[in-house]
């Protein structure tokens, strides 16, 4: 295989389930999970005579995402019916948008591993309703080979935004960066919990290969990638498959392929047929959407700081490294950093604590740190370290206690304060020199590294509270004095 002369052309279609209180077209509660068919109304089941009414907040969310992606917001747009028969769709048509989506052309800038930025075009963002879920009962557990299927419509009618990119993506890495960045934007906007594993964010990839300078190849649509990592793996596999196929004299067919995470392969799910005739037409049950300029500006004004801006602020104004900025961003710790800085804390020092101890605590407990720690407390901790009241070890213990809800750093510092009393420490140092006579002699003989064992012994004897600077000074006086 000689992939070097081949170029991949990739476009992504991302579906985002909105976290509105109610569904897209009915007042049914919109929440994940639940016993089968406990979250359906007569509208969601498509019972005869029922009618859809648009959730205004879902429209607002669509405009939010559109503005965040610099899309044109259509002055008027419509809902269309997309017609095809599938039993997870209660009406056998999906209410979606067609020729005029609510958000038109926009773009998303992604940052690659080498620090460069690439702009990926956004074709559109449109609103639609989700379908229900079918469970296939039988040995295979999959649709093929099932004996029968059971239908649960809890998810039917959940509001979706479908965000379609231009075919501007060339590598798996770019695709992963795009998905990561889009997810960060969606989370910053607060419009979805965007969990790829749970399907509240879903990504399909259109992949083709061609030799640069020649027309694009035939594309395959790949589905069922449940993480950023599997998106990358699936695209890499698919590029290699297509190149191999063409180089061995075959042709790529237009089809939908299923990514198998365990096997690490894609396989044919469904050929595109002439039967894919969705007979789109404007849904006569719904009227046009014409957001006023005032409304759009109101939404624009309410947008939060977007991830790219946040990262630029951290690396620029606050002088943090790109890596720390990304870590803080991905861990959701930027608000805590900002609050700490707001309380007079040093940004670089705060970033150290947040990217290490606090991030680790979040990972261990699964609890967002903002629920346990305030900027004021972190700033207080930093100043207790700065003025020497707390040593590094003491500060760690105090932070753990603060996160455990035991009190403020000022309240807890007493138990863990550094021992900086020279007389008290001198007595302990002398004791250690007697106990560790061998080590002491090594230092005297010129082996400076051996001093570590002596410092460690003093720290142990003081339960980590000894001021390390003072310990070193006292030892030096005695060993080299």
């Amino acid at each position, binding site marked *: 295989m000689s992939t070097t002369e081949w170029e991949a052309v990739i476009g992504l279609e991302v579906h985002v389930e909105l976290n509105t209180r109610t569904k897209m077209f009915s007042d049914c509660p919109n929440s994940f999970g639940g016993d089968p068919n406990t979250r359906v109304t007569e509208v969601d089941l498509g*019972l005869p*005579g029922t*009618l859809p009414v*648009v959730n205004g907040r879902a429209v607002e969310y669509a405009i939010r995402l559109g503005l965040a992606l610099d899309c044109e917001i259509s002055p008027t747009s419509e809902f269309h019916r997309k017609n095809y028969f599938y039993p997870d769709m209660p009406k056998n048509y999906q209410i979606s948008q067609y020729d005029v989506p609510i958000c038109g052309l926009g773009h998303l800038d992604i940052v690659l591993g080498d620090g460069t930025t690439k702009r990926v075009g956004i074709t559109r963002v449109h609103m639609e309703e989700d379908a229900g879920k079918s469970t296939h009962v039988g040995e295979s557990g999959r649709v093929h080979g099932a004996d029968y299927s059971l239908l649960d419509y809890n998810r039917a009618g959940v509001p979706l935004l479908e965000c379609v990119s231009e075919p501007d993506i060339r590598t798996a890495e770019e695709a992963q960066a795009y998905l990561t960045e889009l997810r960060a934007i969606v989370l910053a906007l607060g419009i979805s919990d965007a969990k790829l594993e749970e399907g509240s964010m879903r990504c399909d990839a259109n992949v083709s290969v061609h030799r640069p300078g020649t027309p694009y190849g035939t594309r395959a649509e790949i589905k069922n990638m449940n993480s950023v990592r599997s998106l990358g793996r699936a695209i890499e596999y698919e590029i290699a498959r297509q190149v191999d196929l063409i180089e061995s004299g075959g042709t790529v067919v237009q089809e939908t392929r299923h990514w198998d995470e365990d096997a690490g392969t894609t396989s044919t799910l469904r050929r595109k047929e002439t039967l894919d005739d969705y007979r789109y037409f404007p849904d006569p049950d719904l009227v046009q959407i014409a957001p006023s300029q005032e409304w759009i500006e109101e939404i624009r004004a309410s947008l939060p700081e977007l991830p790219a801006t946040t990262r630029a602020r951290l690396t620029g104004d606050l002088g943090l490294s790109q890596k720390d900025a990304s870590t803080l961003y991905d861990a959701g710790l930027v608000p805590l950093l900002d609050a700490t800085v707001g309380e007079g804390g040093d940004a670089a020092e705060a970033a150290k604590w947040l990217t290490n101890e606090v991030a680790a605590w979040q990972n261990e407990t699964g609890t967002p740190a903002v629920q346990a720690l305030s900027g004021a407390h972190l700033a207080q901790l930093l100043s207790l370290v700065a003025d020497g009241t707390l040593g590094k070890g003491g500060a760690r213990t105090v932070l753990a206690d603060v996160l455990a809800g035991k009190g403020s750093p000022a309240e807890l510092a007493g138990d863990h304060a550094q021992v900086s009393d020279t007389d008290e420490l001198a007595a302990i140092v002398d004791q250690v020199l007697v106990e560790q006579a061998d080590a002491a002699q090594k230092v005297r003989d010129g082996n400076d590294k051996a001093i570590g064992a002596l410092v460690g012994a003093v720290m142990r004897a003081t339960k980590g509270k000894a001021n390390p600077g003072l310990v070193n000074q006292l030892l030096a006086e005695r060993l080299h004095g």
Partner: protein
Amino acid sequence: MSELVTRTAAQLAAAMQAGEVSAVEVAQAHLDRIDATDDRTGAWLAMMGEDALQAAADVDARRARGDALGPLAGIPVAVKDIMCTRGTTTTAGSRMLEHFVPPYDATVVTRLRDADGIILGKTNMDEFAMGSSTENSAFKNTRNPWDLDRIPGGSSGGSAAAVAAYQAPISIGTDTGGSIRQPASVTGTVGIKPTYGRASRYGMIAFASSLDQAGTFGRTVHDAAAGLEAICGHDPRDSTSIPDPMTSYTEGLDRGVEGLRVGVVKEFMGEGSEPGVKAAISHSIERLAALGAEIVEVELPHADYGLPAYYLIAPSEASANLSRYDGVRYGLRVEGETTHEMMANTRAKGFGPEVKRRIMIGTYALSAGYFDAYYGQAQKVRTLIIRDFQAAFDRADVLVGATCPTVAFPLGDKTADPLAMYLNDVYAVPASLAGLPAMSLPVGFDEVSPQDDGRRGLPVGLQLVGPLLGEHVMLRTAAALEADLDLDLTPRGHNALETP
């Protein structure tokens, strides 16, 4: 048989108010009339007698206590079986929904109940409202009380026949392209469809969503208007429901037509009209002039394209609206190897020939490569028809013409020729496409029937069309003409249903 059934809703309301008769007696009289005659009219699909008597007793009790009562207190109403009724089968005239019991009421039904109307039961109709003779009902034929061998019109044939047969003073129908006006015309009843968006479509089984409107039948303009007033109004559950406040449809009906400009639509007096129809219409226009109206001729240059446009738009919308009947969640199921086979088998057995025909037309018209020439072009023609009406309403306050080209035709006459059946609605469809309020008023009889055998002929309806939300000017014109003509609308003739 109690003479109570011959009274109008207005007369019954007055009698009940005066304590001369109870709501239970009124309901019972109508239930008895149905019992005695429906073997011949075939107007009803499901009776709700027990609930009706209960509701009537409740009205009587509240009246006795001096409680405030709704505007239709104690008035029996027949409801087309296209309106969902909680706990009562709602079939839309289809095998597909033969055993479907909705867990909710249509908004129109809720409004009838809130108005203290007494719902007697559900009436027969063409399957999914597709037809002009009620012969497309999957269950039975409904017969015209004026001649039991003739059609009652359709698709709201059951509701029209029930009112003509004195089985109910008021009934609810739906009109997509004439399905209230044409049955009213051929049964000698008053049938009104309001402005599109005035009556909620929630819970009304959809045929063609951009055209479907509920409306009413009565034996007088006042009764039909009173029913309409009760069912209309804004409904947040229907996105196409008009939010503007309601105006009264029953007040000021007696204001006359003095000084009103009545536009006679040239295209609604066309070639295909029977001479008897033309004569009755001409006579009614002369009477309007005699009553002080200013008669003007108006043209709707694109009216001839209305029916072709309708037969693209309505089937297209229907093809999607009827996709939900697939044997999965409710309704008929016919088994198959796979889900898709089961769906296809279910739909093949559950739908009758006319419904399948229209699904096929609509599916074809929306399919790849045909959309622009068919659906797209039809929606443009719709714009032109709206503009035609706007121009006509610059010159006239209300428009008139024939409701349909012929009087009631014999059962079976047009079942073999779909296009001939469709042509019944050629005058009714333009107002539907333009969303305008429209009605049919009985204005005379077809006295020159070729098979004239001594009967006075079959009823002829005058169509009246108002501007958007201009129900009142249309109703006021109809009321003036009704009073002037003072017709006896009791079905009679050698083959008519017996008089109560």
